[in-house]
Every structure is written in C-alpha cells, then in structure tokens.
C-alpha cells in the first residue's frame, strides 16, 4: 500500500460519523473514491494499458523544442504513440506525463473520452500549457491504440474523410525578396502547392513608428506581388503586435486579399483582439496557445476569429481539437490547426482535419523543399511524413494513427535537456514579443 493511500484510509477509519476532522475539506481521502476501471468491467474493451513511457528526443542538441513522445503499451501487444512537445518546457511536460502514470496503468484505452475527463477534471486546477501538452500526448496515444483495437484509422473513427484526396496544407515561405518569391511561385505551381504562410519583419512595441508600420506593409505587399494573385497567402503576426499596431496593419493589408492574418495580438485578452477584427475585413486566425475547448468559447461567441488554430500537441490532443472544431462549426468558423512540433502530432492532426467539415488548411513548419528535419522524420517512420503530394497531405490507411515507430530509431537523437525559447528585447532593453 502506498503511503498516501495508507494515510487516507487511516483518516477514514479513525473518525466516526459526524466527528470533527482535522483534515482540510478540500482533501478527499482515497478511500472515498469510486473504483475507477473496475466499474467498467463488461462494458469496455478487454485491453489494458501496461506501461507508460516518455521520450525526450532532440534532433539538434541545442534545440528549444525537443520532441516529447509518449508510448503506451498494452497487454494485447499493441502500442500507441502520441506527442506532447511543448517548446521551451520539455522537462516540465515529461514530468507531467509521468504524473499521470497512475491514471493510465490498468486503464482501458478505448474509453479515451473518460480518461481525458479524468486527467483534466481530477487535476482540479484545470490545465495550462504544460498539463495541456501532457494530456495531448497521452490522448493521441490512446487514440492510436483505439484505432488499432477497433481496426480503423482514427479519421474513420471520427467519421471522415471529408476529402478522400487528403488534407490541404501550406508550407512556410521563408523567401524575402520579390525575385525569391517569384521562384517559389514557380516551384509551387510544379508541386501543386496552393498556399503559403509568412511573417512580418522585426519586433514591435505597443505603439509603433511610421517606419516600422510601412516596412511591415511593404513586406506583405511583396508577398502578394511575388506569389501572384492565385496562391493563398497567410501572414502570421505571431502576437508581436498590440491591438493598436495590428489594427493599422490589418487594415492596410485589406487590398492584398490575404487568406488570414494570424495572432494579430497576444492571446490573453479576447476583447482586445476583437478591436482588431471589428475594424477590418481581413480574416483573423488565432488559437495556437489555447488549452481545451473551453478556451475557444469566448473567441467564437464574440465573433473575433474567422479561423481557429488549436494545436493538437497543446489543446488536449485529438479529443479536444475535434471539440474545438465542432464548436467552431456551429458558428461558421473554419479550422486551420497549428503544427510546429514533431511528426506524431502532425499526423494526428491530419486525422482530425480529415473529419472536420469546416476544415480549411493544415500547417506544417517546413519549407517547400525537405531539409534535415524532414529526412529524419522519414528515417523514423519509413515514409515522407507531413510532405504534401499535389498540395495535400495523403491519409494513411492503417488502423490507429497509421505508422510504426521503434524506440531504437529515436536513440540516435538523445534528449538534450530543456532549453528556453528565444528571448528578444527592444532597443531600450525591455522585453519584446516574437
């Protein structure tokens, strides 16, 4: 018996009914809890989770975003993989995944919604980004197992695919000059890529000078001029701008007919973002930092976002991304999920994308040409993961998430430890958003 359990029982035994307790009212003793998994005997599946493993994987030793992969093993010999990568906080997420050990050992992986609720609700304080990412990784691994147990790819369990050709995506346009963009446009035409995303240059204070504003506007104009009238262009402000500055830029960008402008201001104050949206016709996309479907509610209700972008590695996995999509659908809002982590989260997102009628476009943090990262992903999974064919990510046909991954393959890239994300400062030394 564990110490905690022992004290809980002792407390319960020592006190008679109605007797005053010195135990505080917010510490429920374990003895009073219902029986959990045992109560579902006969209505669940027969498969049980037997082990939980977490891997920190640094494909570059100094990376600020080592992948955090979650592996669940079962008594049926099936394994499930998920991704809990959280940039800058790898150590915390690994610890948080392990905190859920007792929730998972002996659990029936089929009842994912039940486990999601238990992890979220029974954590009492609800989830921030660390716990949101931990739940996300576990949730994806449970879905991978569910699909394998039930014999269907996850997108079919979710009722898809909406489009059997696959999931429309965009690459990042890193090119800066007009000439480079014209070249990119030619490559895109050859490859069938229909959409790109780019950013705005530099750092922004909460009020800005004409020089900085006009530089950003020129950069957006160059994107349209270089990529031409037929490619969809999204511009990510990355919450570098305040509502005051973003309102100016978003309005100036109206003639460029952008697909969307992303995160025009930081995410804590929905009403402040509404100020931007109200004063322009340019579509607004946001949501990569949101945790659980609850956090999407205000954005949807207030008519702020035209497009929601929850991240399957933070929002709470497949379960929570699908719910955010369902809420958005009711208000005619499209989904363009954020993805800037590893291949497992990317593939998991494709399954949800393929089952959402209001899906717009899927991100991958890659350029139009595969580089080292994309080659490592292919080496791990045995196919070019998260690479588009004719502008779409192909859907796997195998049960679960649809890939095999061996622990040995990851050993080449050991965990390099937690590294902070970029820290940037304004000219006067004050803290800047990037």
């Amino acid at each position, binding site marked *: 018996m564990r110490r905690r359990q022992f004290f809980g029982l002792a407390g319960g035994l020592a006190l008679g009914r109605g007797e005053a307790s010195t135990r505080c009212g917010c510490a429920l003793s374990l003895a009073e809890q219902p029986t959990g998994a045992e109560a579902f005997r006969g209505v669940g599946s027969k498969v049980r989770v037997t082990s939980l493993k977490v891997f920190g994987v640094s494909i570059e030793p100094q990376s600020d975003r080592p992948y955090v992969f979650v592996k669940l093993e079962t008594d049926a010999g099936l394994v499930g993989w998920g991704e809990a990568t959280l940039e800058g906080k790898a150590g915390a997420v690994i610890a948080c995944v392990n905190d859920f050990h007792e929730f998972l050992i002996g659990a029936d992986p089929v009842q994912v919604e039940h486990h999601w609720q238990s992890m979220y609700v029974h954590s009492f304080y609800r989830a921030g980004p660390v716990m949101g990412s931990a739940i996300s990784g576990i949730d994806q691994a449970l879905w991978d197992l569910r699909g394998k147990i039930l014999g269907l790819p996850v997108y079919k369990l979710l009722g898809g695919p909406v489009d059997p050709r696959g999931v429309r995506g965009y690459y990042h346009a890193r090119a800066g000059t007009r000439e480079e963009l014209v070249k990119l446009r030619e490559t895109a035409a050859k490859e069938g890529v229909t959409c790109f995303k780019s950013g705005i240059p530099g750092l922004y204070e909460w009020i800005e000078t004409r020089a900085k504003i006009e530089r950003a506007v020129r950069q957006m104009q160059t994107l349209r001029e270089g990529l031409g009238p037929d490619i969809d262009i999204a511009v990510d402000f990355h919450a570098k701008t305040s509502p005051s500055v973003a309102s100016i830029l978003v309005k100036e960008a109206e003639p460029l007919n952008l697909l969307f402008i992303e995160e025009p201001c930081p995410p804590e104050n929905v009403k402040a973002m509404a100020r931007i949206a109200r004063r322009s016709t340019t579509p607004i996309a946001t949501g990569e930092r949101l945790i659980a479907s609850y956090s999407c509610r205000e954005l949807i209700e207030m008519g702020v976002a035209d497009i929601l972008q929850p991240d399957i590695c933070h929002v709470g996995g497949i379960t929570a991304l699908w719910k955010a999509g369902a809420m958005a659908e009711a208000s005619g809002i499209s989904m363009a999920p954020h993805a800037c982590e590893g291949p497992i989260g990317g593939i998991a997102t494709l399954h949800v994308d393929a089952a959402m009628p209001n899906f717009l476009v899927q991100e991958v943090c890659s350029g139009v040409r595969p580089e080292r990262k994309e080659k490592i992903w292919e080496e791990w999974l045995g196919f070019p993961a998260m690479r588009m064919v004719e502008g779409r990510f192909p859907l796997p046909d195998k049960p679960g998430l649809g890939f095999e991954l061996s622990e040995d393959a990851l050993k080449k890239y050991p965990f390099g430890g937690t590294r902070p994300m970029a820290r940037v400062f304004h000219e*006067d030394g*004050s803290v800047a958003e990037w």
Partner: protein
Amino acid sequence: MAGTEIFIEDLRAWAVREPVSRRAYTILRIRTRSGLAGYGECAGITAAELARARPLLLGQPATAYEVLDRRLAELPNARAAVNVALLDIAGKFARAPIFQVLGGPTRHKARAMTALTGASDAARAAGFRAFVVPVPPPAAPNQGQAFVNAVRRRLEALRAAGAEDLVLDGGGLLSPGDAAGLASALERFHLLWFDEPCATSALGAIRKLAAENVTPLGFGRNARQASEFQDLLREDAVDVIRPSLARHGISPIRKMAALAEAYYVAVAPYHDGGPVATAAALQLAASLPNFFIQQIPLPEAEEDRKMRAELTSQPVELVKDGFAALPTGPGLGITVNEEALKKYGEAVA
C-alpha cells in the same frame, strides 16, 4: 524589523516659476527623523493644503507610501508630490534608484518626446526624435475641411523637415465630430497617436471615434483616478494612457499601467512640469513593462533651461538619439539644490 522604521518629521514646499515661459510648479520636501530628505513635485499647492497635510503625515512611517496615499485623498496636489517624495526616501534608505525598489529596471533608457510650438530644429538638437504637435486652437466648434487641411499641411511640413515621429495633440479642444474627421483623414499618415482628440467626458462619443478608424488614440492627462482609465479600456477607446505625473505621482500610475497592460495598451505619462517630476517620470518608466515614451518639457529660453538644470544640481533631462538616460543614484537619482529653490521660487507658508 525595528531597524527599518523611519518616521516623517517635516514637510515643506517651494513654488517655483520659470523666468521666461512662466511655467510654474511646486517642489515638496519630506524629511525624516533620521535625517533623510525626499523630494516630490506637483503643479501647485496652497499653504492651507500644506497645513492640512501635515497632521496626516507627521509622525507616520515614511516608507508607507501606499497607506499614506489614501490618507491624502482629499488633497490631490499634495498627494502626488508626497508619493514621489516618499519613494525618494525609500530609495535613499535602500541606497537604490526608485525603479529598483519597484522591481525594475525594465529598460536601460527611456524613449522621450517633447512638445513643438515652432520648428523642430532646437528639439532635434536637444536629442529628441519624437514630437508632440498641438492642433491650431479651433475658432469655433464644428470645423470644416480647411481645418483638416491646415493640420495635415503642418504635419507634412514637419515630416519634410525630418520630424518623423509625431503625436498630434488635440488638447481636448475639439468636438468628437471634428476629432473623428481628423482621425480618419490622418489614418494613413501613421501618427504615433492622436492625443486627447476631444474631452474625455463623453465616453460614448469616444467609443464611436475609436471604432471608426485605426488612428491610435491617447487620453488621460486630466483623469483624476484609475477608474477613468478602466472605463476607457473597457470601452476599447484608448491606445495610449496618459496619466499625469503632477496629478498622481509614481505608484498610482503604476496601478493604472497594470490595468492597461491587461489590454496590451501602452503608457506614456503626461508631464508638463519641472525637472523633479522628470526624474520621477524616468524612475517610473524603468519600473513599467508597458511604458512607451515620456514627454519632457523643453523650454525655448536658455534661462529657463538653466533653471531646470540648477534645481537638480546636475541636469537630469539628458536626451540622446531619442532616448533619455536613466538617473542611477539612490531615490530619484537627483540632488535637489535648495539654494536654487530659494533663488527661483518662494516657500509655501
């Protein structure tokens, strides 16, 4: 903790006036039993107000600036100066600049701007790169296109002369309708912001003005309390809050800045007083995360500038390439020259 108890023993003030501009302000001094002296500044204080403040302050703990701020609620002028003076004492006691006492420095220099009445040459020579330009005083309510064109021409002429970053100062003089016309006409001019485009009394009118165009708006030099900023922020009506140093001192503005921070709104404290308040403003700037720019008065007359420098022994208003250097000594980081106070002003008694 007995070693940290210091008590207020004495309170006095001097009214000073710049010889040419006639700009007036009052410097207040608090002395502790242990012999520390702290200085603050406000627009003006009467002998009667000073007499009412004394029994509220004498014998009280000098570091309790937050507690004593409340005691002075009925004496708004004294309140601002006392707040700064008590923080000056706290800093001197801690042998640290006020911005360190308050959790800074959040920056190593403070962006600065100054008001222009004529050409920008002198202000540029003094190191300023951002300027406040007043609208011409409107002859009557409801201006026409001629007024809009006159303002635009003035701004364009300044830009052509190299004054790139401009705040248009409406001074609260325009009707909301005139202000809206001007804000829309200047939307693509990219002012830093349009300050006090109309009076803050009609919140509904301001909300409409702010919803119609994207020219950033600044408000608040006349605001008496934080709740006025809360109203403007809640109504999505403000892009820069401008609490006045002379009205509030340091710590009340920190609370207003905390409100604005939650809306991603910048703070640019209003200041048209003397050099002690400038020192306070720079201390404040280096303690805030959402500070954007500090207005610093730059008198045209050499005589006035000389007086300002003398009052603080060494000049504190040192601007280079658009940024003011932070004072680094304890407290306000200045040594107030009481001989100069007597030379340029008179004791309030």
